């Protein structure tokens, strides 16, 4: 267990080099080694989606991935959304629509929604519902999350990987 492997990746635009145990999950690496605690651990078996981050623009379950699998990748976490102290338009829409309550699923939901809007900039409500169905929220019943994603889509083009 003491064997360590070198990894290198770009996290929220910052080149990052480290040595990790082979079994270290990506979410542990982000949270504990980099202090990016916005990715949360909810179920550790890939169902709830609170650990969702974007890898090369695609959503992944960071609890189910080993850090070494992200070697060479670009990772985006919730900490990479707000820029210069300003919330990203998607975050702003979540705030306005109260698309969150406890906030635990929120970082994963934001990143999933960002991916969705990247692929489909003007989704219907049904498409948003389908698009976020892979992540669980226990507080909101999803309704205001869907309203928030639709509101964000109406405002500005969303480009995955670019802060506001």
């Amino acid at each position, binding site marked *: 267990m003491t064997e360590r492997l070198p990894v290198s990746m770009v996290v929220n635009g910052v080149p990052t080099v480290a040595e990790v145990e082979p079994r270290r999950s990506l979410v542990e690496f982000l949270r504990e080694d980099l202090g990016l605690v916005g990715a949360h651990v909810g179920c550790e078996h890939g169902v709830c989606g*609170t650990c969702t981050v974007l890898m090369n623009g695609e959503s992944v379950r960071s609890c189910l991935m080993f850090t070494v699998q992200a070697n060479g990748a670009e990772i985006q976490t*919730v900490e990479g959304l707000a820029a210069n102290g300003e919330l990203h338009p998607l975050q702003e829409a979540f*705030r306005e629509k109260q698309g969150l*309550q406890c906030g635990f699923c929120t970082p994963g939901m934001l990143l999933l929604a960002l991916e969705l809007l990247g692929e489909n900039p003007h989704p219907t409500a049904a498409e948003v*519902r389908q698009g976020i169905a892979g992540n669980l*929220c226990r507080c909101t*019943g999803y309704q205001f999350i869907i309203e928030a994603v639709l509101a964000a889509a109406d405002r500005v083009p969303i480009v995955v990987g670019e802060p506001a």
Partner: protein
Amino acid sequence: MPAVREHPTDLKWIGKSIPRIEDPRLLRGRGGYIDDLVLPRMLHAAIVRSPHAHARIMGIDAAAARQLPGVVTVITGAEAAELCDPMPDFGPDPARHTWRCLAVEKVRNVGEGVAVVVAESRHIAEDACDLVEVTYEPLPAVVDPEAALAPDAPLVHEALGSNVAYTRKFDFGDVDADFAEAEVVVSDRLRWHRSGGQPLETVGAVAQYDPGTGMLTIWENSLSFTSYLFLLAMTLKVPANKLDVRAVPAGGSFGSKLWAVKAAAVAGMCAKATGRPVKFIEDRVDNLSNSDHCGSDRVYNVELAAMRDGTLRSLRIHVVDDYGAYMQFGVGHHGNALAQVTGPYRIGSISYELQAVVTNKCQQGAYRGFGSEVNNWMLERMVDLLARKLELDPVEIRRRNLLGKDEFPYFIPTGNVYDSGDYAEVLRKALELAGYDQWRAEQERARQEGRYLGIGLCSCQERSVFSATEFWFWFDEPAAPVTSMPESITLSVDATGGVSATLYSCAFWGNSPETMVAQLVAEQLDVDPTTVNVVYGGSNTGLPATGPGGSRFTVMIAGAIEGAVGKIKDKAFKIAAHLLEAAPEDLEWREGGVSVKGTPTSRKSLGEVAVMAHLFKHSLPDDIESGLEAGQVFDHPYTTMPSPDRSDLGVFYPFMGHACHIAVVEVDVETGAVEFLKYVAVHDCGTLVNPRSLEGHIVGGTAQGLGTALLEQFVYSDDGNLLTQSYFDYLLPSALEVPEVVIGHHETPSPYTPYGIKGGGEAGRMMAPAAIASAVEDALAPLGVRVHTLPATPERVLTWIEEAQGA
């Protein structure tokens, strides 16, 4: 009865859906949850859990685990019993069903902890768990609550002598006479299976012990019942004034973090034993199998007596409740049900017989509704059954029995009071929003096409703001006075006029305590709510507090704020009077400062007053001390003692919310799947502080109620193995299962609370199971199906159809 309040009508901030104060940090991933907390030299704990439902622990060999590099200590259950006293337990007779942070001698459910490993990392701790050798002697398990009543059933707790932890029958009013006069009686057996809050964040704690001072500090994502934390100090064998529990925001609770002190006890014990900070965070399997917070698990046998015109007369309820292995909250869940047992209806008498049994399952705790949501479902199922028997429309039978808005305050047979309401208006709004008549016509058409479309309706109560009487009125001895269940706040105005509010319970569980406080303070001091700084104090030096639960927080904190603002204003008036050379009675609060009445330009802002108070006391009258700060404890505003013979339970849950939900579904009789065509929820929880945030609770609670109604169940095999140990098996509703909820409000202010606010946090889950069960049954009415069990999974629906067709 408290005095009736006059509520102000010219409100500036109350009633506005301002964006929540909590959200900017949560949206940035900076929630500050328990697992985000890292202390220097912190260790990590993992728990060795029982694979058996019921077994004697013959021996534990932890030698190999202790030798693993990185392991600091292993504490077995027997060793923990030396380090800690039993867990705080509000159960009927704790000595006869002793609950400990780790099992000793025998395990009583799958997942119960038998040892804890403390190591340099969670990985190493879990590696070491695999090296702990536990020798078990398996015992027969008791899983079914009715089987647990059998005289030869295996005993979960030998000291109890049976598996019945509590039994009693209460009669309120003349039940036999009402049944004798009744023209029709319907009866049924109803089964509500166990589900749970399942917040996406599990329970966790970080503890730090200072041997130099003897101080034990615990950060935990539950700090409810703050005033009772001396009990946790007793468990951990530290003086109560040497325990400081610090509130950490919770990533959801829904009741399941209410008094969740076992994680705190484990972390605290390990910190004391190792002298280093220790973090213990449940993983999802820990949480699913052993969180101490399963919801109700009930078998009802009910009789409802009525007249032929549909007038309800009396109810006889017999309920067996499966509490699982321990009884931490006693039978408070049924006390909760008794707060609104007759629903929104005029029912003259009631008999309530409870058998609380223990079995080899995870113990019950709290889940949004705390047992009264089950009562709502049971009552609505019976009213629907009566309507069907009398061939009355479900709307009509409710109209004939709903309490009128002029009948309040209304005392129900148990003695609890309903403060106010307008149930007919809520029903009218819901029918209008749903387009009820059109759906009945649509149903007619659908049936001709061979489609199974159903309309379900419920009229349900949501009690709010408990006093803890419900936990103890079950017992003649020991008697206790009524409990005040206080909530507190300290308001501080700094030298620039900035306002800070300190809360003393773990108020943030996903609700909006900071937003509520900011809006209420803004209303009363006439400041911008976004400028109010809300912080959380520790329990050690804090004012008495209780925390959220039972839909109490907003009402109670509003009372505390009212008092604290009053004190701040009194002092500000004194100071301003001196500065303005005016009499205090000639001054008024205006635009966030003090002005001379009729001369608004002659004024001192809050900042001008505050700087004098902070720095220049010697320029002020002698009786003014430096500073501008006020604390206020607000006690339950309306609670009364039960009668000695318990024929009257007193007032213990007086601020009565109400809602009508209407669900329109189509059932696929080939697959058993239920599809929603419409969902309407109209709620009345008094004056709304932030309508949008309440609506969020309504939709979220409805989604949880949908889970309870259709998806969620902790399933145990006959030998007590938990078959739903992951989210692959325990199904939480996703966005594809939850329909859009059309929300309506009606506001009947409470006469007895600040601004007329009532609680609404459990909204949705209190109603949705009743509405959905009703809709599924209505859809399958042509097949003669009765929905007597939840969740109505596809498998169950198909079985019911088969049974009905075979009958």
